[in-house]
C-alpha cells in the first residue's frame, strides 16, 4: 500500500463532481453505473489508490490491489484476563486466520482457524468456522457438534469441490479444573506450566498435527474434505498455568523459544507476536492466551 496517498480522499465528495473511478468518464449525480464502462458506482474505496472501485472479489478495478481485510491486526481481552491477538504477518497480503475468544459464565471458549492458503476465499472459511463453532461452544454444545456446525458453515461457501474454501481448526473450552480441546489440521494448543521463580516457562504441546512430514496438512474443514472428525482431548491441570492456542504462523518460530515467565496474558500474546514477526512473519499469526488456576490475579 502506498502511504503517500490518502486512501479516503474521494469519500465525501458529491458523486456528480467526480468522474468514474475506473475509466474517468464523467458520471451524473444519482447514477448507479458508469455509462461509459459499466462500473458500479459507489463501490468501496481502495486503500492504495483511493478509487471507489473495489469489486466483489476484493480487487481494486483501477490499480488491481487486493484489499486487506479488517483483520490485519486485532486484539481481544476478556475480563478475566484471557487475551487474543491476530495479525497479517509480514509476507501475506491479508490475514486469513480467524479467532474467537468468549466468556460464558465461568467458562472460556476460544476457536482459532487458519484459512488454507491454496484454497479460494480462505479468509471467509476461517471466519465462518470461528463464528459457527464459537457460538455453539458458548451455548454449551459438545466439541463434535460445534465442529460439525463449523464444517457445514465452511462447506456452504463452496460453489463446487474445485472452488472450496478451507481452513484448519482448534477449539478449547476452559472450565474450572478442566480444559477440553478439539482440533483438525495444524493449528495447535500448548500448556505452559507456571515457571518456578527465576525460570522461563517451557511449552508442552497438547495437540497432534494432521500433517505429513513436508508440512502439507491432511485434515481440514471444507467442501473438498472427506468426512473429517476432530481429535478431542481433555486435561485437568493440577498446577496453575497458561493455555496457549495458536496458528502455525506462531508455532513455526517456537523451536527453542523460552516463554517469558511474567506479564499479563495480553503482554504475553503481544510478546509472542513480536517473536513471530522478528523471526520472519512468513504467515498470518494468531495467538490466544488463557490463564488457568490462580496464575492471573
Amino acid at each position, binding site marked *: *500500500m502506498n502511504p503517500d496517498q490518502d486512501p479516503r480522499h474521494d469519500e465525501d465528495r458529491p458523486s456528480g463532481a467526480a468522474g468514474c473511478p*475506473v475509466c*474517468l468518464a464523467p458520471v451524473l449525480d444519482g447514477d448507479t453505473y458508469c455509462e461509459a464502462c459499466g462500473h458500479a458506482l459507489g463501490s468501496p474505496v481502495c486503500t492504495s489508490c483511493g478509487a471507489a472501485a473495489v469489486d466483489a472479489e476484493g480487487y481494486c478495478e483501477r*490499480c488491481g490491489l487486493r484489499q486487506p481485510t479488517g483483520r490485519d491486526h486485532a486484539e481481544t481481552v476478556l475480563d478475566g484476563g484471557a487475551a487474543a491477538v491476530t495479525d497479517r504477518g509480514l509476507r501475506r*497480503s491479508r490475514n486469513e486466520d480467524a479467532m474467537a475468544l468468549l466468556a460464558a459464565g465461568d467458562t472460556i471458549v476460544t476457536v482459532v482457524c487458519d484459512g488454507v492458503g491454496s484454497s479460494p476465499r480462505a479468509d471467509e472459511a476461517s471466519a465462518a468456522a470461528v463464528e459457527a463453532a464459537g457460538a455453539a461452544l458458548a451455548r454449551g454444545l459438545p466439541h463434535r457438534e460445534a465442529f460439525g456446525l463449523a464444517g457445514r458453515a465452511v462447506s456452504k461457501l463452496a460453489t463446487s469441490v474445485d472452488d472450496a474454501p478451507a481452513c484448519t481448526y482448534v477449539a478449547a473450552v476452559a472450565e474450572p479444573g478442566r480444559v477440553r480441546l478439539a482440533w483438525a489440521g495444524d493449528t495447535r494448543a500448548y500448556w505452559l506450566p507456571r515457571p518456578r521463580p527465576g525460570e522461563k516457562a517451557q511449552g508442552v504441546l497438547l495437540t497432534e498435527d494432521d500433517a505429513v512430514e513436508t508440512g502439507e496438512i491432511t485434515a481440514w474443514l471444507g467442501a473438498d474434505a472427506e468426512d473429517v472428525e476432530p481429535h478431542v482431548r481433555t486435561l485437568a491441570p493440577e498446577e496453575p498455568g497458561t493455555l496457549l492456542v495458536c496458528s502455525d504462523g506462531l508455532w513455526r518460530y517456537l523451536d527453542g523459544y523460552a516463554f517469558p515467565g511474567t506479564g499479563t496474558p495480553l503482554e504475553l500474546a503481544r510478546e509472542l507476536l513480536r517473536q513471530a514477526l522478528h523471526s520472519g512473519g512468513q504467515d498470518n499469526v494468531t495467538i490466544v492466551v488463557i490463564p488457568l488456576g490462580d496464575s492471573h490475579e
Partner: protein
Amino acid sequence: MSDQPTFTLTIDQNKYLPTDGREVHAILSIGSTGGAVTTQSVAAEAAEVIIIDTSGSMSGSKIREARQAAATAVQTLRDGVHFAVIAGTEKAVMVYPSGRTQLVRADPGTRKEAERAIGRLLAHGGTAMGEWLKLAGNLLTAHPSAIRHALLMTDGQNNERAEVFGSVLSAWSGTFVCDCLGVGDDWVPAELRRVAEAMLGTFDFVRNQGDLPEFFRRLTQTSMSKTVAELSLRVWVPQTATLKFVKQVSPTLLDLTGKRTDVNPLTGDYPTGSWGAEEREYHLCVEVPPGHVGQEIRAGWVKLVRPDTQEVVASGNVLAQWTDDLAQSTHINRKVAHYTGQAELHELIQDGLSARAMGDVDTATARLAKARELATESGREDTARLLERVVEVDPATGTARLRRNVDKADEIELDTGSVRTSRLRKE
C-alpha cells in the same frame, strides 16, 4: 438453447514476483465444447467463399488439381450454407454464381452448377490477392450474422504493391476469417502469413498437388464446424500497468497485440476469430508497477466476450504477489516456459531463413543450429527433421554448417510450419 457451446478458461502462471519484479506472464487455456452441430436445424449460419488462383502459372496439371480441389470443397458444403467461388488473377472474377455479386444457398442443384462452372476454369493472367480478398469481403459481409470464411489457394507471388496489399488487409481484417494454401515452390510464405495474421486464419503448404482436394475438404469441414462467429479476449490491466503482449501460442503462433480495440482506458478487446469445439492457448505479459513484499494485485482480468451480445462466456484473474522468497519467485511456470521456447524457436527459424536468403551465413548457421536443438528438445520432431535438411551439425564437435543444396520445398515447409507449436507434454 441447450446446445449452446460452453467455454472454459484456465490460467497457468507463477504469480510470485521477486521484490524488484515487474513482468507477469500467464498462459490462458481456452476450451470450447462447440455445441452440437448434429442436425442442420441447429447448425450455425455459415458463409463460405472459395478463391482459386487461376493466374498463368497455374496452367497444366496444377489447374486440374485446383479444379478438383474446389469441386471437393463445394461438395463438402452442407445444405443451406451460402457460398461463392472466385477465380483470382490480376482481378477477381465470379465463377459461381456467374455474373452476380452475391452468395447462393448450397443445395444439390447449386452445388452441381458450381462444379460445372469450376470445370471450365482456365489459367491465364496475373496475381492480385488484394483484389480477391476485396471481392470475398464484399460477398461475405452481406451476411453479418453468419460465420464468415474464405479459403484462398495460390501458387505464386502477389504482383500488387506491398502498401496496396497492406491497406486491403487492414481494411478487411476481422470481418471474416481466411485460411490460405500455397501450392508448388514459387509462392512466398511471408505473403500468406500476412493474410493469415490479418484475417485470423491459418496458412499451409500443400507439398504434393495431389493432396489439394483433401486440404480443401478439411478446411471447409473445419470452417463449417464453427459454432460461434467471433469471440474477443477482453483484457483489463491496472491503470499503472502496461499490457506488453497478447499472443495466441497454440495451436499456432499469432500475435494479437496490435489488434487491440479499446473498451475503456484500462481495457481492450483482442479478436480471436470463430470457434468450434477446440482448445487454444494464449500468452499474456503485463508489466506492473513495483510492489511491496506481501502485496497482491490483480495484474490482469481476462474475459471471453461475444461481441454481438456482450455476453461474458468465461473469465479469470492473472495475479501478481511480491515475495522475498527466491524459491517462490524464481520458479517458472512450465507452460509459460514451454510457449516462450516455442516462440523463440519460431523467431530463430524466421531469422535464420532470412539471414540465409540474404547471404549472411554466420547468422543463418547460428540461428538454425540453435533452432534445431530447441526443436528436438521440445518434441517438434518434424521441424527438427526439416532443420536437419538445412543445417548439419557435427555430432562430435557440435560445429554447425549450412547445407549447400536445399530442396526449395523443404525450405517452404520449414518457413510455413514454424508458426505451429507443440503442446506441453504431461509430466
